[in-house]
């Protein structure tokens, strides 16, 4: 009788200890009220904040039930994770074999200690039982809410939400409640593609070199026609840097074998990884030697995504330099528009057929005269655009022109431009040129020819060479010859 009393007293003291520990734990975690006693040790264990506490509490509670020897063994293996797990499992078996109500409850509590967030299946023998125990337990409202909240975190761990956590489930629960761990599921589906907020992207600062093209200090109020320029007003615009120069050099050399001298001049100004600024250049050559194409390909190859193409042949006045602000529909100069369009400080302005524009000295002004101030670095750096009435820094804008005949250009342009001759292709360039034409056709004209084009055979090349020689060495003619050859090949192909 006396021994029974003492064991009961011991058990009561064990529960008191548990409550004290929980109270301390609570005090550490924000000093909330100690939980009122609830019958089930497993539910009490949910409130504990770390594995060691849980182990200590449970050990004390079950010492009398599992016997001295097993309790001592549990303490002995402490520190060795694997051994503790094995011992805990044996303890659970032993407790279940006792067949009493308390032992069963303790067994459930002990099996909670064996759960690890990194191994979600380990939870399956615990969670349904715990949930059932909680549903059956009659807790007071506050405590019930708290315990359910914590059990939900255990369930989430059982669903695999915290598989990357190395901590114990008790510590993870505290961390989740404190908001330290966001739900980071390994099984979470990949987020669908989110469209880029372009406006926001423009607002973020550019990490590379940049330049304010249109400082507000030197600008006046924009009128209605120039509203779009508000976007680059007093804004740092990125300077595009040259990239992949070696590769570009090699590729363009293959594509334009006849223009290797012009290419080497164009590449001479560039340094890998530095902002692109080209000396103003005129590519002069006979019609159809691939100048325009060369410029386009070169710009794309070195990383200039934005080139403002301006056709000089249709330019009959000086609108290149912008129209006066006082006019009813005023327009900014072409380089300023190129900057605005590209949102970069160093776009490429490509003036095609500059020798075809209206001669300087015409009544309406001329491209040739209005072009002059942009070519000199000194003046371009403080160019006052007459339409914006703002001082712009346009000294990083690059100009490339093509021309068939540079002798018609006034001397101030010939002085400002570097003139590079692009020779007409020769017969030796035919194989490479024909191949690059075919490549471009495949790339640009869709899949009409895709997969159908074998390299040209020597006899085909010989026929093409004869035709090309007769037509004069123009790339436009060669394009037609290549097309005709492919069509002829298609027509003569053996079909089954």
């Amino acid at each position, binding site marked *: 009788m006396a021994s029974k009393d003492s064991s009961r007293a011991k058990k009561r003291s064990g529960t008191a200890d548990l409550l004290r520990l929980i109270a301390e734990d609570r005090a550490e975690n924000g000093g909330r009220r100690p939980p009122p006693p609830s019958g089930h040790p497993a539910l009490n264990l949910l409130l504990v904040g770390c594995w060691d506490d849980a182990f200590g509490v449970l050990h004390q509670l079950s010492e009398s039930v599992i016997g001295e020897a097993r309790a001592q063994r549990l303490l002995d293996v402490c520190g060795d994770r694997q051994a503790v797990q094995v011992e805990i499992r044996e303890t659970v078996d032993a407790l279940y074999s006792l067949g009493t109500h308390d032992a069963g409850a303790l*067994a*459930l509590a002990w099996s909670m200690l064996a759960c690890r967030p990194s191994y979600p299946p380990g939870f399956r*023998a615990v*969670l*349904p039982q715990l949930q059932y125990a909680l549903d059956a337990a009659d807790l007071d409202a506050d405590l019930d809410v708290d315990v359910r909240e914590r059990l*939900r975190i255990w*369930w989430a761990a*059982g*669903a695999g939400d915290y598989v990357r956590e190395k901590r114990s489930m008790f510590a993870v629960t505290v961390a989740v409640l404190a908001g330290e761990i966001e739900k980071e599921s390994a099984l979470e589906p990949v987020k669908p593609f989110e469209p880029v907020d372009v406006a926001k992207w423009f607002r973020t600062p550019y990490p590379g070199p940049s330049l304010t093209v249109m400082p507000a200090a030197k600008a006046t109020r924009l009128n209605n026609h120039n509203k779009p320029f508000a976007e680059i007003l007093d804004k740092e615009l990125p300077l595009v840097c040259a990239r992949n120069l070696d590769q570009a050099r090699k590729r363009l050399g293959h594509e334009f074998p006849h223009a290797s001298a012009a290419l080497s001049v164009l590449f001479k100004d560039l340094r890998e990884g530095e902002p692109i600024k080209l000396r103003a250049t005129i590519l002069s050559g006979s019609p159809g030697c691939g100048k325009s194409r060369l410029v386009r390909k070169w710009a794309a190859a070195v990383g200039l995504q934005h080139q403002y193409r301006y056709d000089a042949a249709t330019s009959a006045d000086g609108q290149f330099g912008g129209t006066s602000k006082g006019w009813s529909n005023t327009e900014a100069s072409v380089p300023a528009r190129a900057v605005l369009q590209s949102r970069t400080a160093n776009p490429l302005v490509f003036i095609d057929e500059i020798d075809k524009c209206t001669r300087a000295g015409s009544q309406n002004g001329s491209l040739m005269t209005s072009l002059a101030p942009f070519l000199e670095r000194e003046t371009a750096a403080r160019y006052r655009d007459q339409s914006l009435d703002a001082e712009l820094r346009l000294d990083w804008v690059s100009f490339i022109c093509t021309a068939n005949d540079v002798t018609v250009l006034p001397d101030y342009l010939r002085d400002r431009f570097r003139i590079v001759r692009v020779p007409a292709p020769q017969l030796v360039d035919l194989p490479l040129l024909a191949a690059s034409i075919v490549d471009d056709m495949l790339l640009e004209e869709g899949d009409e020819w895709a997969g159908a084009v074998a390299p040209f055979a020597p006899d085909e090349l010989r026929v093409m060479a004869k035709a090309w020689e007769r037509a004069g060495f123009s790339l436009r003619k060669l394009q037609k010859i290549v097309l005709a050859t492919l069509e002829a090949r298609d027509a003569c192909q053996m079909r089954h």
Partner: protein
Amino acid sequence: MSNSGWKQDLARDLEAYSLGEEPSPFEMLRAPVIENWTTEVRRIGKEFKLVVRGQAKRHPDYDDGEDIRTAAIHWFDRKGRFARSAHRLYMLGEQRGDEIPIDGVDL
């Protein structure tokens, strides 16, 4: 065949399991078996439930070998021998292995 006392049955069974008992041999023989089973924790709103999936055997409502998914499990045996849902006891056969069989390797 009505079973209006299923709640009491469930409570009695869970009580017995928590006392360390196992289903009786008669119940075991009578219960449907789930072969090739896996467990899965599913969300129901804020709450969760554990279900077992696998191929049924000896199930009164399904053909043998049919893929089934149980209702919420209220007791899952710690050694994976049986699982008790609200209305039914399931015996668990082989657990589904995640390893790739040798002849399943595509070389």
